């Protein structure tokens, strides 16, 4: 199976650490990603909200490219790109008129034959590989101590018929990947609430308010960090919340970064230094805690052995 990689504009810009971590993790899991040659922007919500047809045509060009380049599926780590691509695939499959019109508009043959998957689905399909990597023991010890809130936001669960999540209100796919990494997903309430998405620039105040509620609930649920799979969510929870006056922000990791850490990659490879909310103190604390715990367990085991030996003697 050949998987085309659609990074999208954000991963080439503000969220390049998502790109870096995806590219780092994929080969470790035996996934060969080939970037779609000459991909163009999916148009995001701007194209779609100005013209429905434009909002379908721009993603369709990229799906047609993937088709031409012989891919069976396209993975779009950016949840917004994924949503646009998947919606396009869905709408063309369900609207014969649209399917007829599109090849003329994008001036390319197009059979709508390429599957669109998001990064969570891709990682979940390789959960076994992740588990193997973790049990090999090379991973960062801190991950085993990490309690995280899995944040899906909107685009990974809605619209229900497009997103393909296991449940639109109580999804568990991200949690399954997190568990495979050895970290602990917390039970919390804001997993599928909106962070403000595309209003990041045009209505910052709303985004601040929505993001704060999400971060606060994650903290209340006992999470050390929030895990996301969307550049917009990341910007709104990391960049925007880093600026909050009470300084009560939480580190926000991309799911790919968590997988990378669990499999023993360095924070630098995964681009963790690019975050606004510093992840280093958290990882250091957890690392220390993990080592202390390991030492304690070891000591206890030794004491037990000693006691048993003593009893025998």
């Amino acid at each position, binding site marked *: 199976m050949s998987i085309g990689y659609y990074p999208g504009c954000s991963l080439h810009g503000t969220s390049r650490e998502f790109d870096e971590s995806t590219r780092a993790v994929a080969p470790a899991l035996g996934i060969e990603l080939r970037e779609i040659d000459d991909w163009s922007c999916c148009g995001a919500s701007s194209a779609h909200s100005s013209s429905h047809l434009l909002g379908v045509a721009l993603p369709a060009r990229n799906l047609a490219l993937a088709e031409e380049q012989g891919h069976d599926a396209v993975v779009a780590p950016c949840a917004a790109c994924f949503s646009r691509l998947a919606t396009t695939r869905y709408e063309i499959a369900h609207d014969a008129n649209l399917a007829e019109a599109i090849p003329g508009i994008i001036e390319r043959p197009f059979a709508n034959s390429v599957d669109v998957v998001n990064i969570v689905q891709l990682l979940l399909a390789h959960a076994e590989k992740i588990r193997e990597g973790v049990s090999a023991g090379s991973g960062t010890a801190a991950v085993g101590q990490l309690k995280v809130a899995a944040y899906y936001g909107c685009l990974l669960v809605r619209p229900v018929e497009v997103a393909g999540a296991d*449940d*639109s*209100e*109580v999804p568990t796919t991200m949690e399954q990947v997190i568990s495979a990494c050895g970290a602990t997903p917390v039970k919390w*309430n804001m997993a599928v609430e909106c962070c403000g998405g595309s209003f990041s620039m045009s209505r910052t105040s709303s985004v601040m308010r929505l993001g704060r509620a999400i971060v606060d609930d994650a903290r*209340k649920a006992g999470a050390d960090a929030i895990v996301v799979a969307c550049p917009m969510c990341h910007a709104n929870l990391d960049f925007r919340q880093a600026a909050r006056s009470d300084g009560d922000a939480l580190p926000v990791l991309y799911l790919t970064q968590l997988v990378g850490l669990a499999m023993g990659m360095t924070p630098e490879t995964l681009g963790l230094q690019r975050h606004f909310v510093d992840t280093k103190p958290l990882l250091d604390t957890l690392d220390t805690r993990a080592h202390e715990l390991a030492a304690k367990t070891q000591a206890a085991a030794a004491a037990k052995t000693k006691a048993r030996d003593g009893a025998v003697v």
Partner: protein
Amino acid sequence: MFVCHCGENIARTVDCARVSETLADHPGVVVSLDYKYMCSDPGQNLVKQAIEEHGLTGVVVAACSPHMHEKTFRRAAARAGLNPFLCEMANIREQCSWIHDDKVEATDKAIEIVRTIVEKVKNNAPLETIHIPVTKRAIVIGGGIAGIQAALDIADGGADVILVEKEPSIGGHMSQLSETFPTLDCSQCILTPRMVEVYQHPRITLHTYSELESVEGFIGNFTVTIRKKARSVDESLCTGCGDCTAACPSRKIPNEFDANLSLRPAIYVPFPQAVPNIPVIDREHCTLFKGRAKGREKDLCGKCKESCLRNAVDYEQVDTLVKEHVGAIVIATGFVPYSVGRDQPDGLKGYAEFNYGEIPDVIDGLQFERLASASGPTGGEIRRPSDGKVPKRIVFVQCVGSRDPEKGISYCSKICCMYVAKHTMLYRHKVHDGEAIVFYMDIRAAGKGYEEFVRRAIEEDGAQYIRGRISRMYRDGDVIKVVGFDTLSGEPAIIDADMVVLATAVRPHKRVKQLARMLSTAYDQYGFISAAHPKLRPVETNTAGVFVAGACMSPSDIPDSIATASAAASKVLGMFSSDDLEREPTVAIVNERTCIGCYSCERVCPYGAIEHVDVCNRDGEICGHVARVVPGVCQGCGTCVATCPSKSVELLGFTDEQIFAEINALLTW
């Protein structure tokens, strides 16, 4: 030939005068006229006069569907001395004037329709009504309030009744309720005397812990088989002392009667006033039976048997089948509440946005009834299940499941508006400083004293009503966050509740579809039993002799259930008032001269109406055998006619001649 205008209903799109004029020239038509309302007395008199005047040998009334007025006109024809089965209806209303716009087109179609029926009638033969005997005993399926009422009414009317209930006790959901709207009288106080009456009635045979296994026969002559499930307690020996229940060591089984809010032992009586007051062993949870199911040779327990002084406990009891002959059947299987959980039957979805009801202290209406009931798990104190605290703020959510097409239920469950109002009152009466907040979409309080009751909850008992649906609820520490919107004030309504009560939809019992298939009665898309006619025959089904009562038809409150039960009972008694029943003579007959005795008809007959008859020669020696149709059993489907290889069976009223005449009249080159 008579054409009806049906006021404007037909005449608006069909030129009735042209129809009658055209048909006047049709071969064999003697009289052809049109009239405003043929079904009115003057209209019927026209038919009668014409028959008498012209000595007609056939009548066609072009009007509404035969399902509507065929009987009316056949009766009119009979009064004029014509065999009623020589009268037929041509349907130019439901299947013509109501479904077309163009007058020319509709008139042409009407003429064609009438012509075919005229040709059919030319081939009709006079038929005689069939009389069949009636067994004057009835069976009532379901021992809730509807079944109890129907059984008592039929028995009081003088006929024997068999009452079948699948649970160990009769009483149904009404026995679980605390107090009833709109009078707030105690449910058990009004129900238990009726239950006892059933038990003691000389004409009622009660089969609890029993289900209908199969049904054969037809109106007036059903044979039903009842499966009496093994109770593991000998009903004739048990005195209901309760020693066994006290002795049972496994006591952690969710108590269905308390809507799983308390626990019960494996040998139990569902509730103190149960009828009959005889325990049953829940074999699924009993240690002894669990051991036996796993193949253990030595029984793991036996405490109940040891404790019983009368030696009534019988582990070896098996299911028994009882056959009964009855003339009528009443379905009264009641309802089950919808649950918001993840597991749902086909076509329904759970409430993921309410976290599938997995938040502690989110309960349903029936559970609240148990909390409020003096005989319930908390002795009538409102305490929340998780920690036993008295909730100071309860949010009641209406229309959960109901009126929610996306979850699979479009209908209104009818009773929730009222019981929610009752719940707020009960709560406020018991917890004076408690807040009762209701989220509703509309208040449907149509019933005597109902609207006043809801107003009382709001005006006197201080229930706060917020108009809007809930979007989401989640646990936030010790409270439940209920995220709603007040559409009247236009403001978000986000409430921290100590407890949430969901007014979940009323659904038909899951096994009622199976029962309906057994009885060949229709049911709607949700599985509610359909009445033979939604307005005119509300307690009959499309299977003659099968009646229906209570919430298995549609959501009903107690007065409704009792009303339909009494109505069904009076229908049964009406049927029992004569010694035999008249039946339409639309039955098959075999031409014994051409029958080759292959019995293909016997193989396809759904009713077993075919019998073997020996054919004798002049000397009385058997020289062959042929098939014969038993007219009382035959229902007239005609499957045998189409199957017969030697064309020796005819269906009276739908003979080959009649049908070919119709086809010929319909289509000509």
